[in-house]
């Protein structure tokens, strides 16, 4: 088990944007989640979806679509955990 921050990003108010990250060994069990670094209390700031591509037999590309739910620019971390 190990965790990390793969990327940092920024989204304009109500913006949705997609990031991709490639060359992840296919045998790794990876989960993805986002964490804002812009405090804004009272309501959710971000939601996300994960798409996945088997780029070749050995490697996986993850596509991360992140949506800013607020009317303010939000900075965030794209976090991952390798579970095995």
């Amino acid at each position, binding site marked *: *088990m*190990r*965790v*990390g*921050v793969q990327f*940092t*990003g*920024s*989204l*304009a108010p109500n*913006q949705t*944007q997609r990031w991709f990250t490639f060359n992840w060994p296919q045998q790794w069990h990876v*989960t993805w*989640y*986002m*964490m*804002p*670094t*812009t*405090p*804004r*209390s*009272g*309501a*959710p*700031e*971000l*939601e996300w979806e994960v798409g996945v591509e088997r780029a070749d037999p050995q490697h996986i590309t993850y596509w991360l679509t992140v949506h800013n*739910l607020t009317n*303010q*620019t939000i*900075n965030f*971390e794209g*976090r991952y*955990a390798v*579970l095995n």
Partner: protein
Amino acid sequence: MSPSGTDRIHNSRPPTPPGSDVPIGRRELVVIAAPDAGLQALASGVRSDAGAETTSLNAVLARHGALMRPLFGLSEHRLRANVAGAVTSDLVPDGMPALERFYHVDAADDRLETMAAELLEHPLVEAAYVKPAGALPVAVVEEIIAAAPLNDMVPAPGDAPPATPDFTARQGYVDAAPGGIDARYAWTVPGGSGAGVRVIDCEWGWRFSHEDLLQNQGGVVAGTSSTDTNHGTAVLGEISGDRNGLGIIGIAPDAVISASSFNDQPTAQAIRAAADRLGPGDIILLEIHRPGPRTPNPPQGQLGFIAIEWWPDDFAAIRYAVNKGIVVVEAAGNGFQNLDDPIYSQRPVGFPASWLNPFNVANPSSGAVMVGAGAPPPNTHGQNWGPDRSRLDFSNYGARVDAQGWGREVTSTGYGDLQGGMNADLWYTDRFSGTSSASPIVVGAIACAQGVLRAQGRIPLSPARARDLLRSTGSIQQDAPGRPATQRIGNRPNLRQLIAAATQTAAPWTGVQFTGSVPASQTQCWFTFNWPAHWHVLWTVVPTTPRPGAPQVKWKVKVERATDQFATYWICVTNLTNQPVAIEGRYAVLGW
């Protein structure tokens, strides 16, 4: 007082107060545009993208021969548009103005107050205030406030020897805790010398040509250096002096140190420029304080000077950096001030209505690590400044202050009282002091911890986590006569403890956070709060009502950064069936 061979270049600015010999900044007129003004400052004048009338605003500027320009350096459109890049426009707490609404007004110093009052009356202006000139947190007038002077050192006469001796034995602050911060221990840990960490010091002038500052340095990356360089040179040496067997050694000698200058940039712009050159886990040091509401008129040295986050534009600039994951370290100031005094909650005329006193820990925070000045161990360099780790008399204090460093007897590069001569590149000091000398010690400690985390492939400390660990580890503040530890300046870092806490791991654990029921074909959301934001948390939902043959629920996780320290998770569960379903919300904490 000035060392021979250096020049003062601030002859167009207000004179330096008696008793100090350091660069001071300009006073600044800051304007915050109304939210819907849509202002754009051009060379030809100010116009409104929203179609508002700007003739009267331009008339005020013209009458005073003034020019209004975006405070944060980039045009309003670039600040708004470059959201996906390094520059973002409104990374400030709720209610605080976005960066593109801040303007700097260039005008003659004697017109600033009049202009601020006139601009404040204009409907397109939300706020207009004059910031007092910033200064290095170094000098006080001893006859008024009975403090020994700070940083009045002069170079020793005579030539420096052919080879500079090893002064590291005089650097007690790198020694074992509690007297020092135990940097010597950190150096034995992979990465513990700050490898891979970048630091930018924001102040006025530096001597990057010094013989002990030649490695791991990036020079002045924004603005231009003042020719008054002793203070900045001493700061550089404390943090990142070379490991070369001569002179001094920095606490984090492998960290790469650069500089952003207040000499020719508004302070907020210099901070933003530094932030745009750094990434998560890197460090910005703010070596500045300025006169606050308790500063007497006429000024008495630096009595009443306070940390700069109190001013809205500097707060916004710090917040901009912190939101990028950069640890900002800020001198608390040498103003003899209790920052918990209610006077600091009184909103000055011209500040925006949304302003809240950032020294009140119940209010939104800048997120910076604030550093006070503590006494070194008695008999350091033969001097006694009170009990070890007690608050030095000049140091500001209060609940807002996070940590302390040595505020006296700091051996470093510059000034020349320890080793002088004709060549300033060979100067060393034994007496660097103030919250000026204290703050780099905390910067160095953070850099060592960040280097260890990087060497282990771990996530660097976020600004909030750095503050938490500095408060929860270290050597505790001591009482001194008339200066009890309740006058908080926090703990002195102890790198043996800090590194252990920063690198601590825990086996993943799981649990059920909530149970509930979702009506047929409905979506229902739960929220759960006060989760440490540095934890990596995974959420799943399972039904507890058996119903074989088809999926019963799906869920979506949303996240809110409620504060720098804590996250709130929102778990929205959709019932895919035509019957109510009982569920449990499960979590797994995967690490940090």
